[in-house]
């Protein structure tokens, strides 16, 4: 089970503020996959996830420019920015609905019956996840997408463990309803 990298090196944050090319490239390499996986879980689409992930790193540079930044964990901060970027994207989608989340799933046409079924299940699942509240999606992405522990998730969400547990139950129940409803 993947676990969250522990607190980041304070010099990472310093080099972010200096916009040091090599250090930024190293930070990008180190955290890219973690952030990408989170975003991909939330939006489903591969290309969109890549795009939003780049935006997360750019957002992080811009925040560093105005002397905002993480107190402890750089990854926690990046995931927080990612959560906001995804929420922004979803809000935009509501204003300009194009059913992108569903239509943008891989274009290759499956031929085998089990492939078609698998694809259909994935589609349903992505649709059902997208129907949940932002917090519910966030908690599922952290616990089940990233595989973080309750404690790590609580730290990232700035909540108590009990609150995360309660949110998890609500999120899972809501997901079950949506999955049932979409069949």
């Amino acid at each position, binding site marked *: 089970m993947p676990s969250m990298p522990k607190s980041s090196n304070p010099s990472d944050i310093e080099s972010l503020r200096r916009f040091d090319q*090599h250090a*930024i490239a190293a930070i990008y390499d180190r955290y*890219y996959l973690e952030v990408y996986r989170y975003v991909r879980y939330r939006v489903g689409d591969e290309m969109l996830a890549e795009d939003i992930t*780049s935006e997360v*790193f750019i957002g992080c540079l811009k925040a560093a420019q105005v002397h905002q930044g993480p107190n402890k964990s750089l990854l926690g901060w990046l995931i927080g920015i990612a959560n906001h970027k995804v929420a922004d994207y979803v809000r935009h989608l509501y204003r300009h609905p194009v059913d992108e989340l569903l239509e943008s799933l891989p274009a290759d046409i499956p031929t085998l019956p089990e492939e078609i079924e698998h694809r259909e299940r994935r589609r349903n*699942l992505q649709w059902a996840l997208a129907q949940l509240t932002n917090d519910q999606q966030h908690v599922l992405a952290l616990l089940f997408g990233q595989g973080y522990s309750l404690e790590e998730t609580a730290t990232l969400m700035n909540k108590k463990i009990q609150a995360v*547990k*309660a949110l998890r139950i609500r999120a899972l129940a809501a997901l079950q309803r949506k999955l049932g409803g979409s069949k």
Partner: protein
Amino acid sequence: MNAKLSNILQDCLQAMESGISLDECLTRYPSLASDLRPLLESAQAARTAGLLPVPGNAVTRGKARVLVHAARLRQDKRRPRLHLTGAWRMAVASLAVLAFLVLTGNGLIAASANALPGDPLYAVKRTVEDARLSMASDPQAEAQIQEEITTRRVEETESLLSEQRVEDVEFEGLVSEQLPDGWRIAGIAVLVTDQTEMEGVISIGVIAEVTGQTQPNGSLLAERIRVEDQESGAPEGGSTPEGTATEQDEETPASEQTDDNSSHGSDDGDSEEDSSGSGSEDATKTPEPDGNSD
């Protein structure tokens, strides 16, 4: 009840992670089985949503874009520009555009859109760009316009090269490859001679500003290549960690597009930039491409 269910759910999830089946979990808590089953089923579903392959080259694709932004922000930090705020900014920009329209007419502006360096209308094109920049409503919009302009400088250079014209050009981009006689910058092969003035330490993965001349044989001769120092007064011959550089990055930052959908962010920050390449005074002369330090 809810707290109890919550704790039992945690036990079951952990058990399932270690390989115990859903049904087996339920037999441990028969009285809660009907409540637990739907939760565990959706937990299984939630987990499968995370099991997606990561495209192999996903990491390198966005990197150029992020590094270009970093370079821009660093320049901005080094050379803060006189800020005209709010109404003043608007007023100055509107006046400039108004004067321009009165003097030239709108058709000229449209006609200038495809002008290349050396064309009669090229100055018009650059003035319109400056006006657009100064009218940008917020830092994000401004950053986007700046990105467009950066892309355009590279495209213009590519057009001149393919037309085999001789013109002075300037552009900036990611250094992606060392060539026998120069560097590939923003996807363009840049020829370095002992006449080329090198400012800063060039290496793969950094952003460089190129001033030079397109040659009739389709190559680009660099007059000056400028790399922002990592820090003011950084010692010469700084590190060039090839390992962290984007060697595979063949695509130029120019081909990157800002996705409007995702860029109206909650963060705000400034990313303004002087378009000129003048700035840091601590020029270091590095005669050959292998001035790339060890």
